[in-house]
Structure formats: structure tokens, C-alpha cells
């Protein structure tokens, strides 16, 4: 009977528009309603695989543009010998991130290659010597105040490791520290397959907490929220235990559904604050950082070793031996796959990142970059292309959208080139998570249309 009452109450709430009956449920995240999302299969096959350090490849291809913003200029030239952690790319532009060598060896060339996004970038090709000699430049930073902390973050070359690639130093650079009071650490890891953030929680707990405390200290933040999906109960339990005596920390168990790790979603579900249209998290008083970024920072402040390696989940039906791999930045995917036992079937599609938002690569010769948290290789069956059919107005896209947009209506408005309608439908709020495309029974590429519609109404430059 109690159960019936609950369903009835939920239904009543649904009627008065508090929340959607099918798309969302009340969960334990401080009693707040959960935003919509989809229940994609988790495929977290590598959960219990402690990351393995792969051998140094023969050559690395280090991109000078592994971040949002301006690309770096090379600081080395052909024939130069370089060491691990040595600064090899920098720029005077504000919005950028420094580039360091991930190996010791000799610069073989500085070339231009086509990226997975279709553009071109400069790459420094380094022939490795296998010695992995550490550069003299690498020493622990001396940090005692906010400007020194910012300088250290800048020198670490850190970008958002969750996938966005936003230069961390830029995110931390605030005109007025009174604007922010809360750190939200994103450990949701809602993308299927990927387990690197989970491994960070389990294997780098100390560094994670040290990094979080350093950010909170120098940015003068009162509260630290760590949001984790409830499909990772060990991580939640362990972090709760480790932070039990520190009142600044709040471990938030998020109901596992994609995209809990989207910035606006995790800020809302951890703190109840809404990042409004056109705002950045700091305007809601929050600094949001990926958990692996925070742990890296904790480690960097200790050792001074800049961002030269990273952990990736290597998985997908075409990979013989899926695992978590620690690889030097710039390692070609082909080398990483070889470390994972090679291909067990012909790869048809390969992704940087997860299956919901990952970007396909056209060749496994491409190197991994700082913000690659996964590389997936799909065989023919997994890379299946569905035939697009007519919209049946089922409303599943509306119920799936975490931003409560109406993708089917946006599609109609886009096709009719109705810019005013697109503005009224707030397509600019689309976070491009792909839930609408994922659930569409007619297999319409709704998120692609959203992206194009956003471009259609964007202020013309």
C-alpha cells in the first residue's frame, strides 16, 4: 500500500509539472529532483583493472593544440634532444595550455597533420630513446598564495581531463575570489565503458584529496562536493570514509543515468544551483573540475611533473584485451592497441572518448592527446548504422533531454529555417549529450541537428 501511495504522489507531482513521470525520479541527491537522462548500458568492463604503464613507444606525436583556445608555438626544432617534462610548446595567448615532452629523445620533425575534427594542427614528432630521463626543469612548485598557485597550474599544462580540454589555469583565473565558494569535483563518469575516473578515486585517493584541498585553499572555497554515480559504490564508500573527518567534503551519490557528469547537471544535483543560460559555473559560485584533473594537480604540487602521461580506458568489441593504460601523451593509438593485445576483429569505427559523446578517428595512426579519457574500437556489429525513418512524435527525446528541450520541435524549426523559433526553443542550451539521438526510435540524428541549429542562430562574427 505504501508503494501505491508513492506512485500516486509521484503521479500527482507529475501532473502539476514538478517533474516528468517517466523521465525522472526523486533520488538521494539531497532530495532534489534529478534531471532527465537515459539509462544507457554501463559496459564498465575495466572497472577492476588497475591501470598498467605501457612501454615507451618508438615515436610520439605531441600536438601543440591539445586544449581549447590558441595553439602553442614549438620551442624546439628538428634535431634537438628533449627530456621528460621539458617545455616544448608555449604561447603568449591567454587562453591556452603549455605543452611538455612526454618522453626523452630527439625531435625528428615538426609537422602538420589532419586532426580527428577535420582541421590541421602542428605536431612535434619525437623519436624516443627509451631512457625517460627527466628534465632539469621538473621541480616541485613553491606555492604559498593564489597568484603562485595559478602560476603553478599554468606551468603544469593541465587541461580538463574529463574530455573538454579547457585550460585549467584559465578556469581558476578569477577577477574576484568572492564570486566562488564551492568546488564541485566531477567523478560521475556517466559515459559507458570509461573507468579512468573511477580508477583515480580508488588508486589516487591521497592525491585527489590533496588537490581538492589545495584548490579550496587558494581559491578560498568553503565546500567541496564530489559527485559520483551510484553504480560505483566502492568509490563512494571509500571517499566517504577518507573524508569523514573533514566537514568541507560532501560525497554526493548520483543516481546512475547519463549524462550525470554534464557540468550543468552535476552542479545542480550536487549544490542545487542552476547555471543559467549564457553563464559559466563561476557565476553560480562554483568551480567544476574533473576528478582526474584534481588528482593530477595534487600530484603535481608534490612532484612538479607536468601533464605528460594519462590513463585511458581501451575497450570495445574489436580490442583483444581491454584494459586501463597509462601512456605517454602523443602515443599513437595503434601502439596502445598493440599493448592491449591488438585487434580481435576488424575495427570499423574507433572513438576518442565514450560512445555517447566521443569523436571518431579516421586512422589509428593518430596520437592520443591530454583530454582522451578513452579509446574504443568497434567491430562491424557495434558500428552498425541505423536507417533514419519518419518522426512519430513519441516524445522520447523530450523526456530524455537533461535540459528539458524539445529536440523534435527543434528539428522541425531547423528544417524550416525558423531562427526565431529556434531561439524560443532555446537550442543554444543544448549540451550536445546525445540523449535525444540515443532514444529516438526513428533513429533521427537529433543532436546533430541541434548542433547545426545552434550554429544557425549563433551571433554572426
Amino acid at each position, binding site marked *: 500500500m505504501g508503494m501505491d501511495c508513492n506512485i500516486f504522489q509521484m503521479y500527482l507531482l507529475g501532473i502539476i509539472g514538478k517533474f516528468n513521470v517517466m523521465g525522472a525520479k526523486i533520488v538521494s541527491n539531497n532530495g532534489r529532483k534529478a534531471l532527465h537522462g537515459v539509462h544507457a548500458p554501463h559496459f564498465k568492463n575495466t572497472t577492476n583493472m588497475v591501470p598498467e604503464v605501457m612501454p615507451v613507444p618508438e615515436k610520439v606525436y605531441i600536438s601543440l593544440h591539445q586544449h581549447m583556445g590558441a595553439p602553442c608555438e614549438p620551442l624546439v626544432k628538428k634535431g634537438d634532444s628533449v627530456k621528460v617534462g621539458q617545455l616544448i610548446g608555449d604561447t603568449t595567448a591567454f587562453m591556452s595550455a603549455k605543452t611538455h615532452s612526454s618522453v626523452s629523445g630527439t625531435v625528428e620533425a615538426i609537422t602538420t597533420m589532419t586532426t580527428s575534427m577535420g582541421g590541421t594542427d602542428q605536431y612535434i614528432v619525437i623519436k624516443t630513446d627509451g631512457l625517460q630521463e627527466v628534465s632539469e626543469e621538473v621541480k616541485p612548485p613553491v606555492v604559498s598564495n593564489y597568484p603562485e598557485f595559478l602560476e603553478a597550474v599554468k606551468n603544469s599544462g593541465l587541461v580538463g581531463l574529463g574530455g573538454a580540454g579547457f585550460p585549467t589555469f584559465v578556469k581558476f583565473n578569477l577577477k574576484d575570489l568572492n564570486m566562488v565558494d564551492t568546488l564541485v569535483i566531477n567523478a560521475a563518469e556517466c559515459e559507458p565503458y570509461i573507468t579512468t575516473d573511477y580508477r583515480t578515486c580508488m588508486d589516487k585517493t591521497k592525491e585527489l584529496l590533496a588537490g581538492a584541498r589545495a584548490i579550496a585553499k587558494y581559491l578560498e572555497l568553503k565546500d567541496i562536493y564530489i559527485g559520483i554515480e551510484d553504480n560505483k559504490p566502492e568509490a563512494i564508500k571509500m571517499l566517504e570514509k577518507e573524508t569523514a573527518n573533514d566537514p568541507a567534503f560532501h560525497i554526493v551519490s548520483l543516481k546512475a543515468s547519463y549524462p550525470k557528469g554534464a557540468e550543468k547537471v552535476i552542479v545542480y544535483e550536487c549544490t542545487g544551483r542552476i547555471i543559467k543560460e549564457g553563464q559559466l559555473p563561476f557565476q553560480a559560485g562554483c568551480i567544476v573540475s574533473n576528478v582526474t584533473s584534481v588528482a593530477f594537480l595534487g600530484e603535481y604540487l608534490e612532484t612538479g611533473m607536468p601533464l605528460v602521461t594519462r590513463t585511458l580506458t581501451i575497450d570495445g568489441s574489436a580490442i583483444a584485451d581491454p584494459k586501463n593504460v597509462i601512456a605517454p601523451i602523443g602515443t599513437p593509438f595503434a601502439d596502445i592497441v598493440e599493448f592491449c593485445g591488438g585487434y580481435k576483429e576488424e575495427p*570499423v569505427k574507433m572513438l576518442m572518448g565514450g560512445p555517447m559523446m566521443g569523436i571518431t578517428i579516421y586512422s589509428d595512426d593518430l596520437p592520443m592527446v591530454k583530454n582522451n579519457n578513452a579509446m574504443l574500437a568497434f567491430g562491424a556489429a557495434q558500428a552498425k548504422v541505423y536507417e533514419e525513418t519518419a518522426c512519430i512524435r513519441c516524445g522520447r527525446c523530450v523526456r530524455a533531454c537533461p535540459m528539458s528541450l524539445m529536440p523534435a520541435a527543434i528539428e522541425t524549426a531547423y528544417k524550416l529555417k525558423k531562427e526565431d523559433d529556434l531561439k524560443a526553443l532555446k537550442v543554444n542550451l543544448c549540451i550536445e549529450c546525445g540523449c535525444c539521438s540515443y532514444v529516438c*526510435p526513428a533513429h533521427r540524428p537529433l543532436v546533430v541537428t541541434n548542433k547545426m541549429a545552434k550554429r544557425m542562430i549563433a551571433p554572426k562574427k
Partner: protein
Amino acid sequence: MKSKLMVSPSPHIHDAVSTQSIMRDVLIALVPALIASVLIFGFRSLVLTAVCIASCMIFEYFTRKLLGKSNTVSDLSAAVTGMLLAFNLPVELPLWMAVVGCFFAIVIVKQLFGGIGQNFANPAIAARIFLLLSFSLPMTTWVQVNSVSGATPLAQMALARAGEMQTLPSYLEMFLGQRGGCLGETCALALIIGGIYLIAKKVITPTIPLAFIGGVAVLALLFGEDPLYHIMGGGCLIGAFFMATDYTTSPVTEKGKVIFGLGCAALTMIIRIFGSYPEGVSYAILLMNIICPLIDRATKSKPFGGVM
């Protein structure tokens, strides 16, 4: 080295649900009512249903072919229309009339307006009304299935309202479908099982059925009539679970669905109580279908964090 890999925009995985799987679920949900109709009305209800499904699919196939469009017969939506239309016919209706109804549903109402997702009215409902207006007598000729009468309970209630003495079937007979009516609409038990299946499989949300049935119950009480007869009588249950929930002709947002369901209930009861015709579900749904775009416009979802 692997080059020339497939490149495509994200997402790279997809939910197992497709238009075809949704329509298949609707067909499955209608099976209990089909079994009930065979038990109540006999083998001919199976024949009528098969003829309707087959002719709807054939009309769908040839219309698409004639129009030079991609063939949508495999999405099973035409089969759903056929099954629903059959369920809205009296069991003794001549088969050729049923085929005419299928033609109207698929060719006129569905395909001439652009096919699946584009029709302004539910094809099965529109075809039922078309048949009712064209062949009034055979469309209202009911076979006697219980000890009481061959007339439908709603017709009896209308007569009772006019002062005639009537013996209505019992609640149990109503619940099990032992009453006069269209072949798929009488068994409340089977329709509720089907409706629960659709909700459990997330094919429909419970909003429209609850608003529709709840609205009918409340209005029946207000008019001083027995709400259970109004819910189990006529096409209320099949309408609420299977016809009013048609995606194309019902609102997209939950708020819109509440308005839609309540509107269906209100029109149904107004027609039943004040109209000259004892049953109002079909007309109610048809009228609400037509104003659905207006409801949609008034009940857009509110974007998260949106600034107007």
C-alpha cells in the same frame, strides 16, 4: 595500421527501441483483448481482425509504392491501425465494409497527409466514424452476448435516462466483456492488462489514460451516473489506453497530455449525456486530435536554466 575507419557524429550507441519495436509492443498489448473478443463473440472476430490488419498493410504498401516513397509497411504501424479499427467494429460487420474502412484509414487519413507521424487524426478513429456515418445500421447492430440484451449498456443507459426501464449487465459481466459492443472494446480486464503492458514497456506514459478515465469518472459522478458503467461501457478503456495515446495525434509534453486526456473525458461525457448518440469516445478523441497542435503550442517544456 588501420586507416579509412568509419567516421560519424556521436552518439555511437543506440537504444534498442525502434518504431517497429514500439508498434510490435502495441500489437502485443492488444492480444489479450483479441483473445477476449474471440471468447465473447466467436471466431468471426478473429477473421475480421485478420482482414483489417492485412488490408491496412496492403493499402500502406501500395500507397507508398504509388507515391514513390520509402516503404513503411515493416514499421507495423499499419498493422496497429488495422487491429484497432477491427476492435472498433461490430463483429457481424460485412468484411467489404471493413476493407473500405481500412482504405479510408490508411490511404485518406494517413498516407495522403504524409504517412506515419503526419496524420492530423488517429486513422482508426477517423475510419470508425467514417464507417458509422456511411453504414449506420450495420455499424450499430450488436449481437446478444449475455442474458440481458443485445444493446450496448450505454444505449440502455440513454434509454433509462429517457424513462424506459432497463436491465443493465452486472459489473462482473461488464468487467469480463459479456456485453454488447464493438469486438475489442468490451473486455475491461483485457484492455487494462494491455494498458499496463504499454506503460510498463514505456511505450506510453500513464498520463493520458489516467486523465481520460479519471475525468470520465468524476464527470459521471457529477452528472449523477454510475462511473463504473461509463468507464467500462462503450470505448472508454480502449480509447484511453490505445487510441488517445496515439503519438502523432496527442501532445508531446506531460502537461499537454493532462489537458488532452481531460478534454477527451469532458467531450465524451457531454456527448454521452446530452448528445443523441449514446457513445462519444470516438468523436471526443477526433476533436481533441484536431486541437492537439494548439495544446502542443501552449504546453512547451521549460528549458533548464533558460532565460526568457
